[in-house]
């Protein structure tokens, strides 16, 4: 992009050159603020960022296209409009380099090279307008400094300066909220809380902050980049109480700043209780008074077995309670479909089985290299593997987490977004989900006594992990939502066969709708796949860490049920 050029300036340019660069930019800024001609719609200006400072480049909308007047580019970019204007064409020069524009022609000649523009230049009342992409496509070829147009944030970055791209996401989960900032390239920010706001400062010259579709709530009211400093300000809501933050490395020379927000005061504690959990002790009223002489019409005969303690009540513990959280050492990744089972396909011909295998391979590499965990793939090539066999591979390899990767499709082309599923019991017929039928069985052991052995049909192995799977799926949905477009129902339950036999917490992810042409392009692009891998990697880290802490909070089993209480012992 940087071209060695011989600087031979005209007397007029020499005069300008003597001015302080900042004053020069300010002068052009005044020019740019001029009222646009009739028939044009003024836009929000682009911001030109250089090592000297910032300035505004006013743009206008002509025929629905965002354009910039050519004479407003001449100053900041040292361009000269040629004295002789031919009909329908105009020549610009910068030093000894020449740019030739032709009205109503989408191709521009830049120093002998042809550059295409999204729309042709327009001549209107003697003034020439070019699409803003002219700045990013044509001008770098004649600039002796790096020059870049960042469309999303409306920045024009000139010179060797640091302007990291920052993508901010916010997600509310029950009482708590989570802010995520993906920073590329990796520049670690500092966070400071000033009254009712966070000031997040980056060691950079400017920030390329993508617009954020944040829905204000009681924890976060707004989020914006400072116009003049590399600072993001987060306005906090009335219920904000405290926060914790962590910076994690992400793939692609990026880092992620994650800020967990907690409400000011947790609601009054109530006993945690879900459908699969019982209170640790019975309510006091129901407790027998210890040592009290129990009036009894027929005293127990001598030698009779002692009465069972209270915790030995006839109803056996729920299966989910029997599955103690375990350390996460191995991950099973299931690339959906394969071989003659192509899965679904996109309008451009992309196949689900190829997308899932590619993402699975990337995820395996990332887990092995960054987390050092063992990874089991249920298929490593384009082969048919039966659904039950996939669960069996995970079981036989003693995987601690199972994730099945799929791609969705809809007859409606507009359908879009990722979805995360865990197994539902609700839709199974009573006989299949009758937990009492899967009760533990006392088996005599050598030396006397007995031992409780769980007898669970193989195909119902997942039943005991439904609560942990809900937590695992919820973590995956949380992390993906920071990076990918999600469907309106990002977390769901469904009776998916591949999950039924998994003897570990298991989730199935639909990464997006391949039937949507935009999503098809995303799902096959390395950038999008990297975002998926980052999300899943982060999910595994979070789940592993929370499992190691012993899961302080019970997980609601129904994704549609709002949280009714914040359990005691949950994060402050």
């Amino acid at each position: 992009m940087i071209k060695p050029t011989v600087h031979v300036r005209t007397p007029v340019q020499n005069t300008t050159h003597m001015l302080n660069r900042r004053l020069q930019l300010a002068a052009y800024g005044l020019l740019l603020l001029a009222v646009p001609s009739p028939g044009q719609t003024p836009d929000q200006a682009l911001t030109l960022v250089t090592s000297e400072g910032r300035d505004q480049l006013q743009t206008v909308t002509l025929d629905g296209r965002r354009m910039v007047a050519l004479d407003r580019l001449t100053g900041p970019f040292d361009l000269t409009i040629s004295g002789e204007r031919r009909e329908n064409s105009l020549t610009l020069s910068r030093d000894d380099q020449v740019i030739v524009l032709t009205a109503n022609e989408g191709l521009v000649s830049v120093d002998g090279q042809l550059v295409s523009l999204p729309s042709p230049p327009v001549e209107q009342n003697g003034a020439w307008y070019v699409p803003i992409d002219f700045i990013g496509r044509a001008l770098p070829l004649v600039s002796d400094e790096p020059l870049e147009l960042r469309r999303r944030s409306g920045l024009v970055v000139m010179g060797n300066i640091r302007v990291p791209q920052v993508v901010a996401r916010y997600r509310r989960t029950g009482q708590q909220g989570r802010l995520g900032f993906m920073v590329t390239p990796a520049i670690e920010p500092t966070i400071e809380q000033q009254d009712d706001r966070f000031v997040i400062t980056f060691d950079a010259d400017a920030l390329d902050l993508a617009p954020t579709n944040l829905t204000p709530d009681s924890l976060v009211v707004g989020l914006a980049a400072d116009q003049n400093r590399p600072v993001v300000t987060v306005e906090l809501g009335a219920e904000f109480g405290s926060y914790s933050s962590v910076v994690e490395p992400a793939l692609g020379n990026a880092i992620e700043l994650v800020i967990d927000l907690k409400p000011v005061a947790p609601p009054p504690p109530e006993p945690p209780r879900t459908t699969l959990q019982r209170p640790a002790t019975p309510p006091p009223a129901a407790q027998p008074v210890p040592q009290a002489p129990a009036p009894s019409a027929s005293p127990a005969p001598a030698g009779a077995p002692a009465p069972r303690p209270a915790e030995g009540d006839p109803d056996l513990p729920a299966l989910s309670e029997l599955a103690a959280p375990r350390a996460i050492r191995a991950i099973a990744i299931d690339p959906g479909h394969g071989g003659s089972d192509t899965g679904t396909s996109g309008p451009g011909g992309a196949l689900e089985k190829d997308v899932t295998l590619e993402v699975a391979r990337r995820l395996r590499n990332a887990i092995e290299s960054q987390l050092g965990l063992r990874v089991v793939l249920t298929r490593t090539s384009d082969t048919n593997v039966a659904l039950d066999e996939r669960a069996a591979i995970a079981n036989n390899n003693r995987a601690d987490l199972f994730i099945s990767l799929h791609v969705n499709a809809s007859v409606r082309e507009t359908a879009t977004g990722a979805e995360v599923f865990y197994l539902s019991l609700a839709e199974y017929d009573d006989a299949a989900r009758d937990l009492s039928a899967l009760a533990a069985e006392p088996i005599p052991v050598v030396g006397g006594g007995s031992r409780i052995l769980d007898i669970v049909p193989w195909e119902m192995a997942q039943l005991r992990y439904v609560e942990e799977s809900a937590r695992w799926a919820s973590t995956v949905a949380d992390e993906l939502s920071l990076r990918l477009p999600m469907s309106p129902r990002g977390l769901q339950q469904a009776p998916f066969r591949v999950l039924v036999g998994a003897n570990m917490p298991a989730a199935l992810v639909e990464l997006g709708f391949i039937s949507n042409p935009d999503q098809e392009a995303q799902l096959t692009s390395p950038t999008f796949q990297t975002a998926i891998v980052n999300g899943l990697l982060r999910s595994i880290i979070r789940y592993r860490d929370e499992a190691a802490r012993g899961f302080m909070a019970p997980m609601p089993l129904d994704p549609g049920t709002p949280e009714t209480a914040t359990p005691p012992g949950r994060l402050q």
Partner: protein
Amino acid sequence: MKRELGIYLTLAVAAVAGAWLLFVGLPQWYAEPTADETAEPTGMATDGEFVEATLFYISDDGMQLVGFERRLRREPSLASQARRVVEAQLAEPPLPLLSPIPRGTRLHGLYLTDRGEAFVDLSEEVMLGHSGGSLEELFTVYAVVNAITVNLPTITAVQILVNGTEVDTLVGHVDLQNPLTGNMRLVADPDDAPTEGEDLAPLSTTPTTTS
């Protein structure tokens, strides 16, 4: 000789009558009446001859099922009523409704157990004609399951068979090895999909008098 001829003639007549009974009479008597099934009320008699049933189609955004009421002929038995409901659900809906069932799918048979389960035997088009996405597989399965369980509440669970045999899934996702109960979480809005006791009068095999 004359007597033998008489016996032969009698046997022949009996054979013809038997064949007629077997191939023409019985099928005719047990055949489904070809009722006029229209999406809109036609103003035809409503004196217990027709019932309203909720059938399930794909929403405009493709992300949910939407329930629509359709008018079906009342049948004399639970099994035949369930068959009629499923056949209506399999049929191509009037525009702009979009069916979640692959085109050409037919109902081979429907069987009820005394446990309140229905086994619905569909033709192979339900697998071969499928787009392959899990969401649409959920829609296909639950359009059938919900159509039965919502409209005929005495049937509590439905298992789908394909060409008379059990299958793991239709296209690789939804477990069909067990009977499934209804799932209204996939259905757009309670107002669009009337539930029992509200806008929709659940179908019943017990005769009811309507005016």
